[in-house]
């Protein structure tokens, strides 16, 4: 009964989205304000209906309603309640519903803002929002309903349907299939919703850009309203990507975090263009330049978001990320094409109106560095795209499929990422054009020389001889010092010139220029993250070894001693085998590692659980590769020492904090 209601609520929400589209179009053509207002208010009802469906599905998930196909496919009785709730986004149709719900929620908050100063933009914004909602709800209603139930006929025939077919009886399986144990990890549980928040968040800047184009309002208003949405979407996208890395690092057990998998790339691409947008928006605010380019960037970003969901959901690519078998591929492909072509078409029809003044002067200024940043980010994006479609192109032209792997991406993007790291440090310090020489003074060269101590130290003490790694360490050090010194300079300025107390001197610059210092903090976060990446890419040490009980192996300054094996049958029929490795550093015992292998007896599935002990300097990471179950006296381990990895996770925290500081709304409004 509730399942039918849940479905009907979704169907009604879909009709409301169509109603919204019709009312907006009619309102614009008839210049009828009430029609637009009615469309806007319809969003409240639409959100309520989608929320009702969502809550209904959550209730089914928690109460083990296995007669509902979705619940059957993603949960089982042995799962704790919170995991059952997060199974909401564990499969195709549930995650689509979750997506639609987020989209409806964002749209509602956005539509209910005051539009007094930009009345002409409201109808266009609503149109974009309703079209997107209509599309995703249509997928949920027509192709992938989370409320389909199992039925069987007296003759034993079984099928799936939302409504009870004539003469059929409900079929309730005893238990569900459960969640793949590999996915039962906090990183994997929060990775999809975080990513969705990022993806869905970009719909608002996109709607505003289309509204700006559609209404012909050429000023920067759309960027200004979009700013908090863009930054929020951007940080959620960043967090989503890093949570995925964390999961890969903790669970997959190859000591890595990023595999250049097509679906990873699909999520990275909108991040790249979104990052470019965050920076070029500053230029448009500053001197009204790059109007068209900013519009192009948001159109690219939103199209890539839809393209990314298409890649993951259509089953075009087979990868750990995709939902197998799907019937939403074609409609999603058509929608992606329509969004991209439609919005680019609109842009070209307004091309003359949205012209840019030619303001850039060739110099080492903030403007030119930002242009360089754009060039780098877009190059990485094009390389990613090229890598994904390379097999298809080569097959078309030569008949042999040529694929490119992580090594290909790393070789090309490595130098580009180093250049980005360099810009991370100097870009915020560069002055706007005309004043550049006063700011890049002696201190820059001084810091440049000073920070050389880091690679030299790494070379002499840390025994690092790899050229690129040393350069990366130097650039990270330089960027970090430049950013921190920029902040302290302003602290000292406030202290000495305005005679403030120290506590105020630390706080006032941030309070007065929260956008600037928020941005600096984000950059500092990026520098910290780069340390973790340098650690994994350039400084990782690894070995694979078979040890008899009591034997030990040395790696870097650490000795790993194999003490023995323990086996037990855990809850939910998991057979756990755990090895004990004690770790000594220079002869003193410091840690014990317990790498284990879990065999899920009821699923016939073995999972290797790495043991990780980490501090700020390094992670010790051990995997139990194999063991002899009869003799218990030999076991094979793969052991990694991953320096600096923790800074990757800390850095993303700093980045989030910085974004928060940057988006805090100003208390006093300067403009009307």
């Amino acid at each position, binding site marked *: 009964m509730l399942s039918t209601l849940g479905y009907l609520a979704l169907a009604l929400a879909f009709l409301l989205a169509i109603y919204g589209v019709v009312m907006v179009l009619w309102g614009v053509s008839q210049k009828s304000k009430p029609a637009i207002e009615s469309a806007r208010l319809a969003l409240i009802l639409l959100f309520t209906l989608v929320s009702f469906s969502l809550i209904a599905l959550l209730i089914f998930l928690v109460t083990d309603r296995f007669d509902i*196909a979705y619940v*059957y*496919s993603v949960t089982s009785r042995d799962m704790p309640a919170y995991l059952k709730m997060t199974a909401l986004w564990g499969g195709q149709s549930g995650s689509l519903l979750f997506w639609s719900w987020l989209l409806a929620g964002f749209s509602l908050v956005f539509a209910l803002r005051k539009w007094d100063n930009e009345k002409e933009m409201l109808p266009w914004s609503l149109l974009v929002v309703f079209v997107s909602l209509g599309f995703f709800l249509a997928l949920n209603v027509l192709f992938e309903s989370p409320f389909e139930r*199992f039925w*069987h006929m007296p003759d034993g025939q*079984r099928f*799936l349907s939302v409504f009870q077919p004539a003469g059929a009886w409900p*079929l*309730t*399986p*005893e238990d569900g*299939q459960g969640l*793949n144990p590999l996915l039962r990890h906090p990183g994997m549980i929060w990775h999809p919703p975080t990513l969705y928040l990022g993806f869905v968040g970009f719909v608002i800047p996109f709607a505003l850009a289309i509204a700006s184009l559609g209404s012909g309002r050429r000023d920067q208003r759309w960027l200004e309203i979009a700013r908090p949405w863009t930054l929020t979407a951007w940080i959620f996208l960043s967090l989503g990507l890093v949570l995925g890395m964390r999961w890969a690092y903790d669970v997959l057990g190859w000591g890595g975090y990023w595999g250049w998998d097509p679906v990873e790339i699909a999520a990275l691409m909108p991040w790249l263009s979104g990052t470019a947008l965050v920076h070029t928006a500053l230029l448009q605010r500053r001197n009204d330049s790059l109007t068209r380019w900013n519009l192009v960037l948001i159109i690219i970003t939103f199209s890539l978001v839809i393209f990314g969901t298409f890649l993951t959901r259509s089953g075009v690519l*087979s990868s750990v990320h995709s939902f*197998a*078998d799907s019937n939403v591929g074609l409609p999603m492909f058509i929608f992606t094409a329509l969004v991209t072509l439609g919005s680019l078409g609109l842009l070209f029809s307004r091309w003359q109106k949205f012209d840019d003044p*030619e303001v*850039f*002067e*060739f110099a080492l200024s903030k403007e030119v560095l930002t*242009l*360089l940043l754009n*060039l780098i980010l877009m*190059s990485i994006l094009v*390389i990613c795209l*090229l890598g994904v479609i*390379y*097999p298809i192109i080569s097959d078309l032209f030569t008949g*042999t*499929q*040529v*694929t*490119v*792997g992580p*090594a*290909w991406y790393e*070789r*090309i993007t490595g*130098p*580009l990422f180093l250049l980005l790291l360099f810009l991370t440090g100097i870009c915020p310090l560069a002055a706007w054009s005309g004043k550049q020489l006063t700011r890049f003074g002696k201190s820059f060269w001084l810091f440049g020389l000073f920070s050389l101590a880091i690679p030299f130290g790494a070379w002499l003490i840390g025994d690092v001889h790899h050229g690129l790694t040393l350069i990366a360490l130097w650039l990270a050090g330089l960027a970090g010092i430049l950013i921190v010194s920029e902040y302290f300079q302003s602290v000292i300025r406030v202290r000495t010139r305005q005679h403030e107390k120290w506590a105020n001197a630390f706080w006032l610059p941030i309070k007065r220029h929260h956008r600037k210092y928020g941005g600096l903090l984000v950059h500092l976060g990026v520098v910290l993250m780069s340390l973790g990446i340098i650690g994994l890419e350039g400084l990782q040490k690894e070995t*694979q070894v*078979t040890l008899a009980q009591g034997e030990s192996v040395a790696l870097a300054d650490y000795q790993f001693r194999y003490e023995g094996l323990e086996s037990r049958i855990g809850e939910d029929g998991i057979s756990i085998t755990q090895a004990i490795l004690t770790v000594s550093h220079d002869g003193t015992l410091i840690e014990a590692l317990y790498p284990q292998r879990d065999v899920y007896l009821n699923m016939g*599935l*073995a*999972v*290797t659980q790495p043991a990780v002990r980490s501090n700020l300097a390094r992670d010790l990471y051990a*995997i139990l*590769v*194999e063991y002899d179950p009869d003799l218990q006296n*030999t076991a*094979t381990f*793969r052991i990694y020492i991953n320096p600096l990895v923790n800074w990757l996770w800390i850095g993303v925290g700093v980045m989030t904090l910085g974004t928060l500081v940057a988006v805090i709304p100003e208390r006093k409004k300067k403009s009307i």
Partner: protein
Amino acid sequence: MNESVSKVSKSNRIKFIVVGLLFLSAIIFLVISATQATAQFFMTVREVQETTKDLSGENLRVSGAVLGESIRYDSENGLLQFTIAHIPGKDREIEALGGLELVLHQAVNDPLNPRLEVRYDGAKPDMLKDEAQAILTGSLDQEGVFIAEELLLKCPSRYEEALPEQAE
């Protein structure tokens, strides 16, 4: 005066274009050199066995069905050996033949199917078993044994079944 302004902006524009072109040519160089060094040719087992080209040393990517009884693992030295049997390279062909599970099953049980011996220096993955699909990257040695550097495995999952087998 107008002329001098346009001259300045012209030389300004040329500087941007020159730097931009330098940057782009550096990227194109990186792409070409990386492609030459790391791109992999995707081949089926049959193509590897029947080609007349000398493949030794080339970066290859080969997919095949794992023969369960051929798996040997020397955990002392971390050396894994097994044999794979030919399966079609394109997903569409596999679908047309009745799906991955069936194709893998038939590939393993057909003695006339071309086979390829594989050596891998590393851990034995959990999913390496009879009738799993192995996707290997690496190269051929002189004796025609495939030396894998990377090993990816896929099992047709029972999770993909749409309807439950049993019901109470």
